[in-house]
């Protein structure tokens, strides 16, 4: 029985008197594909923010790759191997697409690999990453001018460039046409095949059921289901409060 890569125990978060997360427990195993779903306002993005360190959780503990993440700043968590993309893409708008990829490489990836990348190594790796997501032709464009789908791809590419062990993809397919969703899905599957565990937060059920091996369902800040994908999707409670008909 392999040890979990990520272990969340008793995690809680409140904003003033408002309890956003209440006793959240779940695990992610190395190389696993986990779907995190739930009604709007159930605490999914808050969970992601607490995992990445943008928010500090109030109770509980987060263990990643044998290391306690509690108290670590976001950049330190990226050194540990945890990467996340943002729900609404947040590129470095005034930098080129290529430089957007170089930043996580220079900081997170370099730290993780333990040795300094030379200028040429950095350039080659960055171009390779862009090529993988199909953005190589736009390498010299400013990130601020990209279309939505390209921004989503860049957002994922940046997270990948940090050479993570776990990628949290926060609604990376929202607002895309079916064909575009398929592109992103293919990208995530390719990533996973390289050994990166992925937590997918998504409302597009077609993608979630095609991608996830396991589902964790949140509702009103609590976990209400955790199990193999098809089982969870047939859970009557999940159907009632999330899926509708």
């Amino acid at each position, binding site marked *: 029985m392999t040890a979990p890569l990520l272990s969340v125990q008793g995690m809680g978060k409140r904003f003033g008197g408002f309890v956003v997360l209440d006793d959240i427990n779940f695990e992610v195993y190395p190389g696993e594909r986990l779907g995190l779903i739930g009604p709007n306002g159930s605490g999914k993005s808050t969970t992601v923010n607490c995992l990445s*360190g943008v928010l500090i959780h109030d109770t509980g503990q987060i263990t990643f790759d044998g290391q306690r993440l509690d108290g670590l*700043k976001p*950049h330190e968590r*990226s050194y540990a191997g945890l990467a996340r993309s943002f729900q609404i893409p947040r590129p*470095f708008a005034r930098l080129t697409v290529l430089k957007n990829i170089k*930043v*996580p490489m220079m900081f997170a*990836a370099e730290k993780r690999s333990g040795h300094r990348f030379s200028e040429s190594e950095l350039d080659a790796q960055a171009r390779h990453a862009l090529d993988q997501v199909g953005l190589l032709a736009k390498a010299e464009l400013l990130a601020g001018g990209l279309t939505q789908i390209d921004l989503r791809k860049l957002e994922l590419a940046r997270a990948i460039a940090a050479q993570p062990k776990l990628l949290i993809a926060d609604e990376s397919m929202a607002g895309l046409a079916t064909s575009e969703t398929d592109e992103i899905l293919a990208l995530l599957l390719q990533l996973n095949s390289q050994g990166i565990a992925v937590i997918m937060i998504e409302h597009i059920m077609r993608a979630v059921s095609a991608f996830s091996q396991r589902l964790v369902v949140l509702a009103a800040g609590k976990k209400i289901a955790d199990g193999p994908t098809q089982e969870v999707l047939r859970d009557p409670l999940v159907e009632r409060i999330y899926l509708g008909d």
Partner: protein
Amino acid sequence: MSSSNLRFYIGLLIAGALVFFGVQALAEGYYLLVAFYILQYIVLATAWNILGGYGGYVNFGSACFFAVGGYSTVFFYKLLGLQTLKSLDCGWFVITGPYLSYLIIPASVLVGALISGLMGLGTGYLTLRLRGVFFAISTLALTVVVQTLVLNWSYVGGARGAYVMRSPSVAGFTSTNEFVFFVMLLIAMAALAIARSIERRKLGAGLEAIRDDEDSAECSGVPTLQLKLQATTISGAMMGAVGALFPFFVTFVDPVGAFNLVHTVNSIAMPLIGGMTHWSGPLIGAILLGGVQQYFGSKNMVTPELSLLFVGVLMMVFVAIAPNGILGLWQRLRGKDVK
């Protein structure tokens, strides 16, 4: 060394030599004065831009960092009794009069840089954990507080000001002023080289990422607080360096002159006008704006207040039509994407 680096340094050395020998050849003290001030502003603008242009954190306290450099010179001058120093016995050799400046002036510059650098670090440490606006406000407050302290500190002259006596001559130069000018030239060249180096390395990339999206930068592994502190310290140190040199040029330092608002305004206006994303922006802005100010100031056509008004209007114009400065306009003309 890569070819682009080689070209830069050679170009820098040639430009420096041209400036120095050109001013020397013109033989009129006026040109030395103008060149000195422009060089001073090149450093102040470049220093400001490291934190403000690259990093997006606005410093409203350039005058304070500058003045602290100046007053550190005044302080140590008095403390070490350097007014009356005729020679210095260093053990196995003695430094006499005309050579004393080789030791005293650079040492003052380093001390001024150190103190202003530490002040930058301290201010940063207190306020950079909070987002943008708080740092800017704190630099404003810092200026007021430090100026008040200095005004009431009689040891460094208080409101009356203080005199800094320098050597009547410096070996190898036609006048002490010329030597001071030479040191300023070296500082300016160093400042440009440092800014360019930062721009091309991790620190520069990290600062730009912070400027564009700080949270996103953190999640990409950029240690944001650490880099912001580095930028504040380097920026403050550069300002302190030229501040520390200033008393040797004007020989009289007082709070009004040292903490002059024009230093703050110019250090922001020059990168804005020249362009904030490249090391050459502050250089262009300093030469253009500084040159204009010196020209009209010397002709007595313009009072200092009118000069400030002019800069203010100019800044508004640039923000409205050319927020990326002259460099931005140039890039747009060439059809490139403007940063």
